[in-house]
């Protein structure tokens, strides 16, 4: 019988020898069986809790959640098992959003700035209402309502309110999705983003979109990923210049030069076509969607242009075509280039090539809104549109700007001089729960209820392939401060405040509008809730967190890829001073998002999945490249574009292209409460004015920067290294098996590999044979 070192130690531990060792400590085994003489607090069940179903509002793409409430206080946010998108699962952001409700720096009262350079002083709601009305009256049509992209009832109210006063409603999203919506429209003929049937796919090929970390509904995508890995385990291929959560989960990671994702997609298509891996019908459909054909996408040329090896391109192509059903997904940084529309179009066309459109395990269209006048889709206005709008502000053509959940001062690049533009607007009214950078330029600041206190509806985007209307309801009332001196915040809902200022033609309260919508759904006589009366129906929908109708659906209307701008252009970093040139790839923070959760301590302390860093802004740089440049972890780096300069702490690792520097979004707030204020740097500020040629969206991954050491080094606040690794074998902390390999066999193989290396090192060894 052969025993290796592990088995020997395990055996001795489990036998009498081990017992003797423990007994020798002077404690007979029975003495160790000790019961607590009293119940622990954890053993006692105290009080009754209530769980309310609601929607996550601005913090996800429409996920449904359950909120645990005890004694009038919200305690915990978990996924709603009934909700068809996230199916009971969560992300690290859920509970962080809870902290907005009880944030110690929550805005408690309305505040007014009497002059542009003055300080904000607290005023009453009556005074605020008067000031608000004056601003609307003075606007005389010169009004802009700025929000985050809003679906559901709130989006409808904001648009109607702006229209009533002759103004406009503009949505702002620092990570624009306009290119994605445009590509989906041109390839699939749909206004809504489609659903990706990852659960039933055998191969997923994604580009740029970190769908397991930050893109779409990560909780919903995570559920699908779990199913994808069960049974006949699916194969994931992901293309992104840096190691994101999705890259890390991939079986095959491709790291193309930023902006060449479309070329890579067509290179993959060329291999598939050349090797005749798909049917003639699919090939014919693909030729129709890509009339320019695949000339110029020979594999050698594509490998040179993308920086991805021929072997990996061929492997990806063969897997994608041979192991169907397959689905291709594009988004994120792949669309954030001057040729973003082409990139995403080429990626989505791959679905046509493998017959994945409207097929099981492929990509499925989503139907429109189940409710009249309630938008099911929303995206931010293009950067080009924003530049035009800001020109109007500067020209003095806009009298009043109302801003809600759109931190435009933080989210816009330096190049647009947003602070200066805001200075030309006589009345800037900002809503929010915690002070943000934009409020520094607001004349009137109004405390806004969080999603846990306000009424609303939300339509998830992308939906699950059928109509869904999620409900949002107040799960707690106003909270009294601990010293009972007053409310934590005398906040009002954004929607209710607008409705109070409206002519009443489109509703008088958000609660009323939500219930009207539920009444409309009741009258359809279909869907997940059936009840004999409208009020019972409303109660049923609110208890479940919404309404959905699995009998609805939609079909794609395949069109054509827009190939008008195939090649990526980048900003010129030549004039950005000295240093080494890199592609700058900003990425959405796993916990802070684009910065909207930066004020909460849980979001700040959540370790980044890849770097494990928290509470800071770091710059990911390839380890070998860093060595060449003499850069060590913690070196303060100056990241300089033609738009400005920021500082970030160097974090070298092997999971990033040598010509790329990756920096998370979310930090660098001048104002955002005690946990975020003056912390880290805002990578969005140094983006250069490069746009997608077709849509005018900001090409936020097309900036080139110069990187230089500042000459200082500080400790990176990270979890990595806090705990000593506990390896399976020295050098093997995570046991990896091949398909059909047992853990035991893998351990054996690892052990013998270790022994071999150990002996080769000439230090001797003992394998306990």
């Amino acid at each position, binding site marked *: 019988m052969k025993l290796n*070192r*592990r088995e020997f130690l395990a055996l*001795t*531990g*489990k036998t009498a020898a081990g017992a003797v060792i*423990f007994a020798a*400590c002077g404690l007979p085994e029975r003495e*160790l069986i000790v019961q607590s003489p009293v119940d*622990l607090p954890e*053993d006692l*069940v105290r*009080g009754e809790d209530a769980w309310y179903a609601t929607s996550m509002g601005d913090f996800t793409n429409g996920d449904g959640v359950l909120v645990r409430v*005890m004694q009038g206080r*919200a305690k*915990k946010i978990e996924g709603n098992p009934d909700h068809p998108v996230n199916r009971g*699962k969560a992300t*690290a952001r*859920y509970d962080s959003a809870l*902290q907005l409700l009880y944030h*110690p720096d*929550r805005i408690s009262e309305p505040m007014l700035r009497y002059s542009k350079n003055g300080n904000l002083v607290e005023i009453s709601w009556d005074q605020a209402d008067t000031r608000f009305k004056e601003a609307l009256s003075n606007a005389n049509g010169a009004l802009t309502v700025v929000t985050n992209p809003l679906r559901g009832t709130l989006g409808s109210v904001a648009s109607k309110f702006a229209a009533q006063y002759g103004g406009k409603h503009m949505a702002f999203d620092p990570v624009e999705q306009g290119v994605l919506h445009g590509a989906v429209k041109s390839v699939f003929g749909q206004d809504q983003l489609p659903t990706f049937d990852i659960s039933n796919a055998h191969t997923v090929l994604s580009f740029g979109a970190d769908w*397991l970390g930050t893109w779409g509904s*990560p909780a919903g995508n*995570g559920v699908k*990923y*779990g199913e994808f*890995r069960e049974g006949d*385990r699916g194969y994931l291929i992901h293309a992104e210049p840096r190691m994101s*959560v999705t890259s890390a*989960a991939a*079986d095959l*990671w491709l790291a193309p030069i930023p902006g060449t994702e479309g070329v890579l997609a067509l290179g993959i298509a060329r291999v598939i076509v050349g090797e005749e891996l798909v049917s003639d019908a699919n090939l014919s459909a693909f030729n129709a969607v890509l009339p320019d054909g695949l000339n110029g996408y020979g594999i050698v040329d594509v490998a040179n242009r993308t920086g991805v090896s021929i072997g*990996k391109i061929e492997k990806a192509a063969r897997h994608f075509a041979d192991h169907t059903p397959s689905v291709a997904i594009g988004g994120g940084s792949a669309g954030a280039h001057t040729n973003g529309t082409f990139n995403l179009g080429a990626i989505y066309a791959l679905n046509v090539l493998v017959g994945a459109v409207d097929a099981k395990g492929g990509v499925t269209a989503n139907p429109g809104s189940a409710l009249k006048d309630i938008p099911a889709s929303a995206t931010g206005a293009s950067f080009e549109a924003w530049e035009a709008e800001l020109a109007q502000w500067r020209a003095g053509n806009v009298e009043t700007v109302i801003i809600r959940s759109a931190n435009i001062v933080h989210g816009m690049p330096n190049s647009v001089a947003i602070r200066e533009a805001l200075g030309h607007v006589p009345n800037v009214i900002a809503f929010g729960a915690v002070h943000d950078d934009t409020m520094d330029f607001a004349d009137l600041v109004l405390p806004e209820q969080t999603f846990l206190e306000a009424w609303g509806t939300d339509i998830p985007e992308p939906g699950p392939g059928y109509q869904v209307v999620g409900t949002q309801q107040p799960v707690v009332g106003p909270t009294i*401060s*601990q010293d009972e001196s007053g409310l*934590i915040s005398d906040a009002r809902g954004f929607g209710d405040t607008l409705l109070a200022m409206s002519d009443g033609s489109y509703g008088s309260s958000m609660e009323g509008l939500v219930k009207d919508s539920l009444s409309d759904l009741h009258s359809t006589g279909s869907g997940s809730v059936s009840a004999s009366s409208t009020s019972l129906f409303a109660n049923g929908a609110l208890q479940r967190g919404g309404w959905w109708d699995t009998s609805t659906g939609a079909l794609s209307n395949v069109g054509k890829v827009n190939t008008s701008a195939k090649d990526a252009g980048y900003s010129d970093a030549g004039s950005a001073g000295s240093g080494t040139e890199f592609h700058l790839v900003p990425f959405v923070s*796993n*916990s802070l998002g684009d910065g909207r959760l930066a004020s909460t*301590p*849980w979001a700040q*302390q959540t*370790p980044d*999945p890849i770097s494990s860093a*928290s509470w800071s802004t770091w710059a990911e740089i390839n*380890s070998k490249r860093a060595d060449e440049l003499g850069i060590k972890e913690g070196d303060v780096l100056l990241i300089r574009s033609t738009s400005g300069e920021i500082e970030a702490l160097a974090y070298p*690792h092997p*999971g990033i*292209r*040598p010509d790329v520097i990756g920096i998370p979004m979310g930090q660098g707030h001048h104002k955002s409460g005690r946990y975020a204020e003056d912390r880290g740097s805002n990578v969005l500020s140094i983006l250069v004015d490069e746009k997608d040629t077709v849509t005018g969206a900001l090409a936020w991954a097309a900036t080139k920067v110069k990187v230089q050491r500042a000459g200082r080094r500080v400790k990176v*606040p990270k979890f*990595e290294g*806090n705990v000593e690794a*506990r390896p399976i074998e020295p050098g*093997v*902390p995570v046991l*990896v098996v*091949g398909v059909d390999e047992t*853990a035991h*066999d893998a351990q054996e193989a690892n052990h013998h*590999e270790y022994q071999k290396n150990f002996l080769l090192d000439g230090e001797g060894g003992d394998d306990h044979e």
Partner: protein
Amino acid sequence: MTTAEFGSHNWGMVVDVDKCIGCNACVIACQAENNIPINTQDRVERARSISWIRVERYWEGDFPDAKARFIPIMCQHCENAPCEPVCPVYATYHNSEGNNVQVYNRCVGTRYCANACPYIVRFFNYWEPVWPESLRNHLNPDVTVRSRGIMEKCSFCVHRIRRGSRQARSEGHEVVDGAIQTACSTACPTSALNFGNFNDPNSKVSKMKEDQRHYTLLDQFATDPNVIYLAKIDADKKVGAGEAATHG
């Protein structure tokens, strides 16, 4: 005490490493559920942060073939727990449902248990836990706020076990498989974390632990953990070849 000696429940967890994406949903869910103090920047930098469950990330290979591997680690609730015999005041003990339990009001803070634990999953409260006043509203009333000078660790959300067991009793039936979930397993989007009763041969976790990929951490120490891991699958791995990863 062996598994068979326990009553009807022997709570445990199966962690499918192949499904873990490193998203940290479990970490924050645990933080919120168990009133764990805020890990401020200062505490993180001084390696004094408290995280009952953590997700470790290891690198394997170099660009362009680099891989990041994740593994969630929490108290392993060992049957032969090295932390238990070293406690001079019996603050840590094995309960009747197979779990390693920490009695906060017995703990005198010797930290012997933390020294003995090979998994480094016990945390000492170096400071009094502090939350800004308004944030105290979201503290979970089911869970004790631990004071300075004592040790804490993953409890498998014992308060949820108690609540679920009481509810089943009041409804006149056994605890249904899956009805009791820890905060981390509830949150985990990919179902990498699975909680249940190993004493029920038909439970999901009992079936999962029979998977050929099952193993336990630091098996050579014979701690007999109640947390079972299923190995990460690398579809392109040449079977028989050892894998090597580096920390950091």
